């Protein structure tokens, strides 16, 4: 089963002003993605844009899989205009995935903004056992709230402007949760395991909290990519053991490894 395949666009629908869901059906058998893995998606145009774009697997479905993407720059702008039925080049699933929590550990999933795309399928996999923390700039940028409701034991929300949930950062909400755990969680917990995906400052804040509280956990990182398969050394991040490739040793890294 090759990780390089052509896939038909089954859907490409807006879920918000600047977010779309792209549903892809691989035209030949392809590997099952694990939560945290990603795909390199080919965008039309002959040589401009040239490079494929990396996107996390959002959800698997009967056709194949979906990605949830933010319209950000020229690549994703062109992606928005891709029509159903069009066939595109895809590479993946790539990278590692979120390790499951040890037995008895309570998974705490922390998503900032479009980071939700990466952890959504993890929440699905943990089938209701996780506590989820989801922050966004404002109410409009909170995506998939209905779908999320059933997915976690509890869902905490924050927005930068207070238009939904708590006003402030989601790292603050996590910190409060850990500082004042509810009796229920306290009773259940043989510790926590954190899974965070989102903008860098958020990941750094979450990491600091985890280290402070002596919790282990994982962050999913982003870096500009060319190859996606570990060949170009383009996508490195600084770790305690030197530079590591987001596309190969990552995108999921143990919190204590990263040098911010």
């Amino acid at each position, binding site marked *: 089963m090759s990780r390089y395949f052509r896939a038909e666009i089954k859907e490409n629908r807006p879920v918000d002003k600047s977010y779309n869901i792209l549903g892809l059906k691989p035209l030949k058998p392809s590997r099952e993605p694990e939560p945290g893995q990603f795909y390199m998606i080919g965008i039309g145009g002959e*040589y401009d844009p*040239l*490079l*494929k774009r990396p996107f996390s697997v959002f959800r698997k479905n009967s056709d194949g899989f979906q990605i949830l993407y933010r319209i950000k720059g020229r690549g994703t702008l062109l992606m928005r205009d891709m029509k159903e039925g069009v066939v595109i080049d895809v590479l993946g699933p790539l990278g590692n995935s979120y390790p499951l929590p040890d037995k008895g550990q309570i998974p705490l999933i922390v998503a900032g903004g479009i980071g939700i795309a990466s952890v959504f399928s993890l929440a699905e996999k943990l089938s209701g056992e996780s506590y989820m923390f989801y922050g966004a700039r404002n109410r409009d940028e909170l995506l998939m709230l209905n779908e999320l409701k059933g997915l976690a034991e509890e869902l905490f929300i924050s927005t930068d402007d207070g238009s939904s949930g708590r006003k402030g950062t989601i790292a603050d909400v996590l910190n409060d949760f850990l500082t004042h755990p509810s009796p229920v969680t306290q009773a259940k917990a043989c510790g926590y395991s954190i899974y965070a995906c989102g903008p860098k400052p958020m990941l750094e804040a979450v990491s600091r909290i985890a280290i402070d509280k002596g919790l282990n956990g994982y962050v999913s990182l982003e870096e500009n990519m060319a190859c996606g398969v570990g*060949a170009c050394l383009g996508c490195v991040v600084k770790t305690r053991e030197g530079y590591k490739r987001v596309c190969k040793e990552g995108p999921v890294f143990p919190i204590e490894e990263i040098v911010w």
Partner: protein
Amino acid sequence: MNLSVNIGKLKLKNPVMTASGTFGYGEEYSEFVDLNRLGAVVVKGLSLTPREGNPPPRIIETPAGMLNAIGLQNIGIEVFIKDKLPFLRQFHTPVIANFFGDTVEEYSEAAKRLSDIEDIHGLEMNISCPNKHAGWIIFGTDPKVTFEVVSAVRRATHLPLIVKLSPNVTDIALMAKVAEDAGADAVSMINTITGMSIDIKTRRPRLANMTGGLSGPTIKPIAVRMVYEAYRAVKIPIIGMGGIMKAEDAIEFMLAGATAVAAGTANFVNPTVTIDIIHGIESFMKENSIVDVKELIGALRC
């Protein structure tokens, strides 16, 4: 139909190689490409000791191309021999080790070390690197320095020696001639062209390293011209590269004078591109009743 070509005493089963730094150590693409099918595998540039490379961001996209500032990160020759070469040994495809140094001595030593190793079939020396002893000026932009470093490496190795020329020069034909005179068995060209991109919001360079190397389709017209200029200046074979995305591009380089070609950035866009190019050359030869691929070399009509 004959696709084989020679680079010095090195015989390639076809003229399609991988460009250094774009194909890792072969392993990374082996799930997409049968390495046995390739003319040669050229690995990521190696140095005597491991290099950390530049901080990220290391790559950005540009119109029809990309800039990279990897900073020659590599695992070092010893780790390469121990951890990566055994994998490549499984294939009956020549392995060409791309390498560099900060000083003439480092270049020679690296060449010597690599020449001791069985199953390294050729060396490609990257001279687009700064010379520590000359104010960090690039080895490959001053004919005198180029001659000195290539001569030194020539003395240090019995392996086929390819000199990878920098395009950031006034006269590429001269540089090719210098490499030939210093004993190179072949020249490869072009390495990336130095470029820069600025984020106007932050007012900072978009690469942490300020400048980077431009590659991809965008540089092809410049690369083809340089191969053509070098072809008229030297007798040794030329390995052409720079923006090769498909068989037609490879053939264009051969017509301009290249004996072999390499795909670089194209691997990122299409991981099976090298095989696609080999197939495409075969089809082209069939359609045009060409029995030996060597007929294409320098066959430009003026």
